[in-house]
């Protein structure tokens, strides 16, 4: 291949790399675009290596060179690949024939990384060093690590060190003196035993364990001496908070539990100063903060194994401040198993402060509201009803239904006006939940509300299923003569009208009579058994059978 052809090819490869740098930033690794870009770039390398052993890029501040020819230049600092390498001291980058696609992907991942977020304490060179790619070599200039005056340090220090002149004369004198005494010492030779090696292996194994407990031990030791050290308390408090944050982010709940317990010890310790106690009390509520609870949610969602018991114990450290952030977490969680954990936590905390929990029903996300209501129902605290009622007109049908379900369990008479309103909700499902809830309250007022609705002229317009539900609810007043009366009247009423809507109400009345099971209704039912209306006849027969068998 010609020189220029070569250069053009390499230029193309580099363009491929810059393109891949953009694409890989945008797509996750399983995305077809990601895979396609990676493969294309790799194929270009492979093609190049068919006739060359390696490919070296020389890095300048704004340019990249191949064979002393500039193949990349960018004047602006932004998104400048040359500068990206150059600023960390990278001066040459060589890819070798054995380059695998995995290695190329690893390399591309490094250069697409958002260093501000993902690798605060590493630069490009460190990441390359850590990965130790077999087929990607590099040359760096370490002077970028030093400030200007630092660069001359070697010369200065060496000159200083060499200034003292060795006293060879003195040594020659020693030559005569010391050889007279023939005091040769036997030095013990140290040899390793198998036992040494086993204990070393164990040391290394033990060393792999988490260092967080040790760190908090140290911080607490410093706390004991805070007074003597002066002005360090605030720092230690901050470090303890950081320790908690760090532990949570690694799912190490045990460490947090232990740390908080030690903090409690300081609060109880009569020798602790008020200042220390103040900070330790602040530390105690830190796990309940937004920051920690959000992290808690994130960690739970990650595929790492965390002991259920540790989570339980951690939850016990929380107080009501955690309720709202926990509810937010609940809205973000992806895995079902984890939702359960958070729900458990909320049940635990909600028992202590039902008000804060219930106030969150205003959340706009229906699934969150549904969870809160199911939590409230599990706790069964009647005080929550007040907040349920406030959300009964929530814009989401699903929320309205859940709220009504909650009210039906926790509420009483006071909920009737709002429930009654819901009987005219635009959604049939909500209306059905409302009538059921009213039935559940079961008072005379409740009964009258339903009767009133059924008697209303517009009731006829409702769906048959909905009507049935109203009548089904009525059957809970099974010993109430007024209801019995109402039903029989409905059945008798206007039987000369032959339109089907009328039959629907009769059918509902029949259904209800069947459910009530009063034998006195039998004669009337027999009378309607062969009305000629298929629906009515069928339901009547069922009701008759039910009453006769049931008693």
């Amino acid at each position, binding site marked *: 291949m010609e020189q220029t052809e070569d250069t053009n090819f390499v230029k193309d490869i580099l363009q491929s790399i810059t393109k891949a740098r953009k694409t890989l930033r945008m797509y996750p690794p399983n995305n077809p675009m990601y895979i396609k870009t990676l493969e294309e770039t790799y194929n270009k390398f492979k093609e190049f290596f068919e006739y060359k052993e390696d490919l070296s890029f020389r890095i300048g501040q704004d340019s990249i060179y191949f064979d002393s020819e500039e193949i990349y230049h960018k004047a602006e600092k932004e998104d400048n690949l040359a500068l990206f390498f150059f600023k960390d*001291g990278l001066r040459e980058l060589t890819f070798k024939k*054995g380059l695998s696609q995995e290695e190329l992907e690893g390399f591309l991942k490094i250069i697409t990384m958002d260093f501000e977020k993902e690798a605060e*304490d*590493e*630069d490009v060179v460190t990441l390359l*060093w*850590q990965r*130790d790619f077999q*087929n990607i*070599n590099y040359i760096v200039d*370490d*002077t970028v690590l*030093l*400030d200007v005056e*630092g660069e001359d*340090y*070697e010369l200065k*220090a*060496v000159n*200083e*060190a*060499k200034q*003292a002149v*060795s006293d060879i004369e*003195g*040594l*020659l004198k020693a*030559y*005569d003196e010391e*050889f007279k005494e*023939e*005091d*040769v*010492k036997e030095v013990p*030779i*140290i*040899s*390793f035993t198998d036992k*040494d*090696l086993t*204990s*070393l292996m164990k*040391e*290394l194994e033990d*060393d792999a364990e988490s260092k*967080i407990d*040790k*760190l908090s*031990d140290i*911080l*607490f*030791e*410093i706390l*004991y*001496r805070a007074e003597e*050290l002066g002005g*360090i308390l605030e720092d230690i408090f901050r*470090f303890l908070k950081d*320790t908690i944050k*760090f532990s949570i982010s690694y799912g190490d709940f045990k460490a947090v539990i232990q740390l908080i317990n030690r903090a409690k010890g300081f609060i109880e310790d009569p020798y602790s100063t008020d200042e220390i106690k103040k900070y330790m009390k602040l530390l105690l509520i830190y796990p309940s903060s937004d920051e920690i609870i959000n992290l808690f949610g994130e960690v739970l969602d990650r595929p790492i194994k965390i002991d259920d018991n540790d989570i339980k114990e951690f939850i016990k450290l929380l107080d009501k401040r955690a309720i709202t952030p926990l509810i937010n977490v609940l809205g973000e969680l992806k895995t079902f198993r984890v939702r359960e954990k958070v729900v458990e936590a909320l049940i635990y905390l909600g028992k202590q402060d039902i008000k804060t929990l219930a106030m969150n029903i205003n959340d706009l996300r229906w699934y969150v509201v549904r969870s809160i209501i199911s939590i409230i129902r599990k706790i069964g605290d009647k005080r929550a009803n007040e907040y349920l009622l406030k959300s009964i007109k929530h814009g989401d049908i699903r929320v309205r239904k859940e709220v009504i379900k909650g009210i039906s369990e926790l509420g009483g008479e006071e909920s009737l006006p709002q429930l009654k309103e819901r009987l005219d909700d635009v959604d049939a499902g909500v209306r059905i939940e409302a009538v059921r809830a009213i039935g559940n309250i079961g008072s005379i007022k409740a009964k009258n509300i339903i009767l009133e609705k059924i008697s209303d002229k517009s009731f006829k317009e409702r769906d048959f299923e909905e009507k049935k539900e109203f009548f089904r609810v009525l059957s809970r007043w099974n010993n109430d003569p007024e209801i019995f009366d109402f039903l029989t009247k409905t059945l008798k009423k206007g039987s000369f009208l032959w339109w089907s809507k009328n039959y629907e109400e009769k059918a509902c009345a029949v259904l209800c009579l069947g459910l009530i099971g009063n034998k006195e209704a039998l004669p009337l039912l027999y009378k309607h058994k062969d009305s000629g209306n298929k629906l009515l006849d069928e339901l009547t027969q069922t009701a008759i059978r039910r009453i006769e068998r049931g008693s």
Partner: protein
Amino acid sequence: MVREDKKEIQKISAEIINQTSIILKTALIHESTNIALRKAIEKLISLLNPLIETEKGVTFELIGEFFYVNNIRVRYALEYLLNFDFLTKEFRKRGLGSVIFNNPINPEDIQMFIKAFITSGLSEDPYDKMLEMMDNSQNIKIDRLKKIIEDRLKKVGESDDIDTRRIIKKTYFNAVSFTKGVMKKIRSGERADMKKAKRIVESMVDQLLEDEHLLLSLTALKDYDEYTYHHMVNVSVLSMALGLRLGLNRMALTELGLAALFHDIGKIQIPNEVLNKPTSFTDDEWKMIKKHPIWGVKAILGFGRFGSATIRSVIVSFEHHMNCDLSGYPQVKKYSGLDLYSRIIALADQYDAMTSSRVYSRTPIPPDKTLSIMMEQAGTKLDSLLYKFFINMVGIFPVGTIVMLNTREIGLVYEGNMAFADRPKVLIVIDEKGKSVRGPIVNLSEKNENGKYIRSIMKTLDPEKYKINLAEYFL
């Protein structure tokens, strides 16, 4: 950076040497028909033959304390240490230097080798006996152990060697200069750059992996004005070299090296006049100095992002003067034992501090005396197991020790010897006629034709008394 095939060869070679050692050990106690022995031989062949084929012949050579395969030095994992030691000693005993495989081998070849090896061990002239017994072998040849004058020079061209030294010096002084900059920055309320600190330590790790002796020898020099910074780097180098012996990987070595580099960072709270004063500290000054482990915790947590490297550094800063028996400072109330890294760094710290006149004591103690003082503390203040590895690393006569040899020569210990801690390489500064010279560098593990050591150390001299400036020889 090491080539992949080179790494692969090193790995297989380490296994081959290990397996050879196992076979010879087994053969010493079992008949040649023993099943275990036959199995072991089969395994050796399965490792060897592919290598012989791909490399078109393989030569194992013992040079100094290392085995080389086709001129590549074999590095080995910790679990091989005892077997490597055994083989090195047995080779030396026989004056055996190389084993050469030109063609793929079969079990009979190995059996012949074993027989020759064992029989020669009892002979007056073991090498000749072995050569005679191996005469018929087509596939395995042997060669005599070579006298080494300066084996590193043999392996690497002279200019390469000077280059390597230059790069290593650069790495070392960069680290010191960087540390100085970090201390200055923190003193003026700026943040230290963790990214750069990592880079500095990583390049030291690279040098140690390439050749630990060179970087280690630089820690022997103590005559710098700003010793505090040199001390921090020396402790880092000594700790990582020890970590390397213990089998830590590159990432772990980096964390260890970082923690060591920052171990005295708390000294930023102590005025320079106190740190560098030529006289002893007053009680008040001591009180202040004893707080530096705690100030270190504050400093590190102040500039490091909360992560594994930071946490390890904090622990080391706090614990490095505590002693294993918690008799040191800071005093603690409720505490479990010291972290592994703290125990490693405490050894390196004590060693470097005691051998210099600038850290705590104003009179330096010669390296070998320092080691014996430390030996007394092993098991109480210092970790006894780690001490064993430490002395094995720096040698009984560490680099920089002035030694008198039984040949009436005086020299400076120039490079440690991993296999024979008492037989380092020595730079001769006064020859047997009492004349001041500069070299040669001699290897004390060298033997004459009768199997006797050519040179041995008689005693060490106090460098203070004779005012030898190591910088003249080492820089």
